[in-house]
């Protein structure tokens, strides 16, 4: 059965407290390679049957209306795995 992957990230202009805490922890470990961290979510949606354009559109709608909170998050990807 095919899978659709949805990726959600905090909006770029917002403070990401979890990411900032992680970046701070990296800095304390002495790692200077990575200067910023932002944390999002990856969803895997299993599809019964074929992935048609309608199914992808449904996944996009679901991603925007339920899987993400559009006030603070962006849907950055909806793709067949």
């Amino acid at each position, binding site marked *: 059965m095919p899978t659709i992957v949805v990726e959600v990230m*905090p*909006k770029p*202009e*917002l*403070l*990401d*407290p979890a990411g900032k805490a992680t970046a701070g922890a990296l800095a304390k470990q002495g790692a200077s390679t990575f200067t910023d961290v932002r944390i999002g979510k990856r969803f895997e949606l299993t599809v019964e049957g074929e992935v048609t354009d309608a199914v992808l559109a449904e996944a996009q709608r679901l991603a925007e209306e*339920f*899987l993400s*909170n559009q*006030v*603070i998050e962006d849907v950055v990807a909806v793709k067949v795995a």
Partner: protein
Amino acid sequence: MATRIGVVTFPGSLDDRDAQRAVRLAGAEAVALWHGDHDLQGVDAIVLPGGFSYGDYLRCGAIAAHSPIMSEVIDAAGAGLPVLGICNGFQILVETQLLPGASSATTTATSCAAISACASRTPARPGRTRSSRATRSSSPQER
């Protein structure tokens, strides 16, 4: 006749009984409401209590916001029924958009997620609230 205030229980709500007790201490009648029902039982106001509805999965309050009872709560709120969201209950209200979410354009201001997270750190934790454990409550008149 006493004011009747509904307190909604969601899967993972922790402080529903605490809220019911607070309603009684305030002199009103507490009416237990169930997330899966479509019946507000004619209450005069509603409290969405604290806790971890649906384990805070997806986003705090996001799944509870789609509960059957919430369509009723949203309509009633639109008609002027007072609704109080405490902690996770407040997060549910933000997810239903009954309360506006805050969005910041700078990296130093707090985001809606941070405000919600702050609200969830203020209440009593499970096990430390007398009224949340029936075995510890020792005042029959408060019931």
